């Protein structure tokens, strides 16, 4: 019986378990995962990049459990554009495309701020700069046209709305683990005629053109190379750090690292 390896968070430490790999359904793809990008908030899920076990040249990305093999329904697969050799950069293209495509529809003057810190904030900052926005601090009363909230908070309280001008736009990057919240729209949205655009950063938007992807590659590469919020995962010794993304290179994981058989 074939097996898979799965990252499990126990006592604030990552470890690897080995599990039996179930037979994929007929309409699914058996994806071999090359790397998984993890955040502690995601509780064992992450952005993954991999390829079809039967067709290694076609690369996919998606959001799912941190495992080295996944059975994915075809319609949920995101096919990565060509030229995505580095799996880490390829994975980050997903949130980059989500941010960039959300900005495409906006016809606003370019005074913007990014709220939150972390990998997504770095990514958003780079994309806004690429798009010609004048980046400012999200101070109350800053009269900004756009605020990109990468914090992933449950509501709107910390989203930097006070920095927006009347009729400004909030781009809310919604994490996959978001839950319904109670929200008062009067002070946050209605009273100041704000626009809220929400985007899932872990889903590649439909109809992303090659041109957009190509334009984002330098930004993504820079973030991968420079961001202090991105670190490789060291099995057995890596304490989880809030806000820090860790990436798991499944191809390079020695099988001798704390593998465990299913009980």
């Amino acid at each position, binding site marked *: 019986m074939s097996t898979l390896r799965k990252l499990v968070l126990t006592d604030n430490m990552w470890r690897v378990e080995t599990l039996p790999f179930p037979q994929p359904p007929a309409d699914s793809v058996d994806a071999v995962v090359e790397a998984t990008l993890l955040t502690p908030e995601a509780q064992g899920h992450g952005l993954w990049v991999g390829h079809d076990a039967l067709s290694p040249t076609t690369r996919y990305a998606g959001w799912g459990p941190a495992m080295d093999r996944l059975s994915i329904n075809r319609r949920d697969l995101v096919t990565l554009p060509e030229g995505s050799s580095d799996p880490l950069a390829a994975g980050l293209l997903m949130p980059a495309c989500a941010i960039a495509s959300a900005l495409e529809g906006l016809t606003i003057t370019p005074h913007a701020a990014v709220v939150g810190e972390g990998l997504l904030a770095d990514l958003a900052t780079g994309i806004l700069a690429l798009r010609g926005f004048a980046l400012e601090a999200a101070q109350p009363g800053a009269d900004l046209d756009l605020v990109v909230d990468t914090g992933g908070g449950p509501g709107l309280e910390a989203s930097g709305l006070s920095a927006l001008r*009347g*009729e400004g736009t909030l781009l*809310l990057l*919604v994490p*996959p683990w*978001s*839950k*319904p*919240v*109670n*929200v*008062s*729209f*009067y*002070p946050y*949205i*209605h*009273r*100041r*005629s*704000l*626009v*809220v*655009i*929400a*985007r*899932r950063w872990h889903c590649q938007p439909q109809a992303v053109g090659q041109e957009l992807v190509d334009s984002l590659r330098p930004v993504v590469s820079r973030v991968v190379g420079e961001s202090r919020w991105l670190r490789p995962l060291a099995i057995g010794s890596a304490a989880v750090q809030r806000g820090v993304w860790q990436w798991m290179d499944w191809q390079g994981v020695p099988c001798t690292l704390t593998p465990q058989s299913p009980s």
Partner: protein
Amino acid sequence: MNATIAGMLSRGRPLAIRVIGSRFNRRFAWVMWAWVRASALRGFRRVFRGVRVEWDMPGHARIVPFEVAGPSRDEVLLRTVISTISPGTERAYYRVEPNAVEHFPQYPGYSMVGEVLRVGSKVKHLQRGQLVAAPAAHGSLAVVPVEGVFPLPEGVTPEEGAFVTLGIIALHGVWRGELRPGERVAVLGRGPIGQLAVQLCHALGAGQVLSIAPSRRHSTPALRRFARRVIATFEEGEAILDTIQADVTYESSGEPQAVRDALRATRDGGRVVLLGSPRGVTQGFDFGGLADRGISLVGAHLSTLSRDPSASSHSYRQAGETLLRLVAEGALDIPSLVSQEVDPWEAGEFYRQLAQAQSQWVGAVFRWDGLRDVDRLQRVSYWTPPELEMARGNWMSEASSPRSLVEGKPSESHGVEPVRRPKGTGDSRTLRLAVIGCGGRGSTSASDAQRARGTSLAMVMDVNEGLARQVGERLGVPWTTSYEAVLSDRGVDAVFISTPHHVHEEQAVMAASAAKHIIVEKPLGHNLEAAARIVAAARKGGVSLSTCLELRYLPQVVKARQLVKDGAVGDLLGATLAYHLYKPPSYWQRGYSGGNSDWRARWETAGGGVLIMNAIHYLDWLLYLGDMKVTEVSARYAVMQGGVEVEDTVVMWLTFENGALATVNTSSRVQGLHQPPELVDCRMWGTQGHLSLTPPFQFFSSRFIDGKRPERWHSLGPLPRLHSPNIEYLEHFSNAVLNGREVDITGEDGLRLQAVIEAAYRSSREGRNVRVEYPST
């Protein structure tokens, strides 16, 4: 939105400024008095006085005088014709719902049409007498910055123009939704803003417009002209929202949970515009779902609409002009939104009603043009002291007329001192009245007797010496503890018996024997037999006898009776009366004046409880309005309060002589209805119409009555202002007696009423229907 926001509409400047007179803040009134004058003097401007709606505390509205400095260089002084009420917004602020301003007093309203009376030196394009639409609070006058003023185009009526700010709000919302021609639109909510949004989307080229609300309550016939479908989710099920697939959805209801409904009604990738102000927290909102469906959420609040007419985006002026143009072109149907006209003097009752129940009407307007000129606007001197109380009555001098202002002449009189109606006008004779019983009610009647024309207070009497002395000395009239002394006094023409019910008979019979005219506080007697003996004694003595049912003189009742006589209702089919209030246990034991007699609590002395003591006035309305006779009664009463014999709750039905039925439900144990307020719901309907003496007073008739369009609800107003129904009653009584006429409200009236009450008590005791037995008179 309220005057605070109306102020914001004019870039933060107050529009019609400052109350002069507040129940809570007389000292502040002097500060404001000085402030207005300082502002006026600084710009060499006049000071004007009018009246406006004030919410002095949550849930309480009234009309108060106020003053304002005349227009500065870029302002305009307007005399209001109509101001439009925004029911949802004003209800929210009146009741201090979530997200409403919490400080009081507040001055509601933000949309009106007025007549230009004065313009500032920099205002060149407006003329005196011109009708304009503007954002201003509900008041008889307003000073507004000229940039917020829109001359009414030809063909636009004041009624239509008065919706200008509401229309701008709706249009701003439509613009925020970036509506494109041919798009499918859903509008949630059918208040004025929602219906305006429907009309505007239709006029601006939307493909299909769907109007959605829980019920069809506010679905006007005109709505179908603009909306492809009118959906009631209570009837059709909420699942219908998922089938709508609108490109743009406008949420105008302000219901916090409706934001989620709006998302359901919108296609993936569409827009949801928050046009109404959400009054509370939306529970369980899923931003992830918003992201998954690619829907944009767009706020739309008027305060962000640019005031700069040269702005590259939409501006306030552009919105106002566009709206009025569409009205002039017939692309909008504003009159369909107006189903209620309110006399400003009835503002208190109107808002009370608005706050208590879901209205059946869409929009309402205050008609200021029904006020007397002197009330609407007058110029006052710099030295006129502040008006601290607003009395209902002739509170302004008749001599001061705003006409002189329009003509550019100074008013001859600046007198604004509240004036009591001159006593004895046109008739030097007075009826000399002795008030018998100096409890709370008697004391009030004694005071009213001094104020009523044609009546003088000769003396007061009470067996309680302390009470008699206190009231006599306070009013400066003789007092006594001896009823015989009153009857033997040749300076007394009539007695007003305001004593415990069981004493009425003896005192009235004695008065009749002494040839004194008689007023008996309701009920006429503590039982039917006693009442009959009173009537008989008065006849035998040849004196006038009246039962004091003074609430017949309330202007709305006078008007209602006239409408019934004119055939507005037709043949009576049914009626209903609910009268609810709260009487504390102490009321039954000691009354409101704190006496030491518990006569109210006992059958033997009071003759009954809430029905005979309190609801009797309103039961009288049911009989009086249509001169109808009750033939049969079925009733149940209950005594739910310890230590009291008499009933505090009654449910009964009446059968009228033509077979029509009426229900009566009254209780004095209803929490939240301490006195005041009381709750009176009194309506009657017939073959031709429906009349409501439930505030706001209104009628509906299939006939052309009172100059009002058929098949439509109309206010009973404008109604004359009344100082006090009791004073009115006394004046009518005196006038009738002095002129040898029969009094308006007779002893027989009281007797008939008591026969119905007696039948109700019998019905309850015997557990059967009881035919009403009217004593032969």
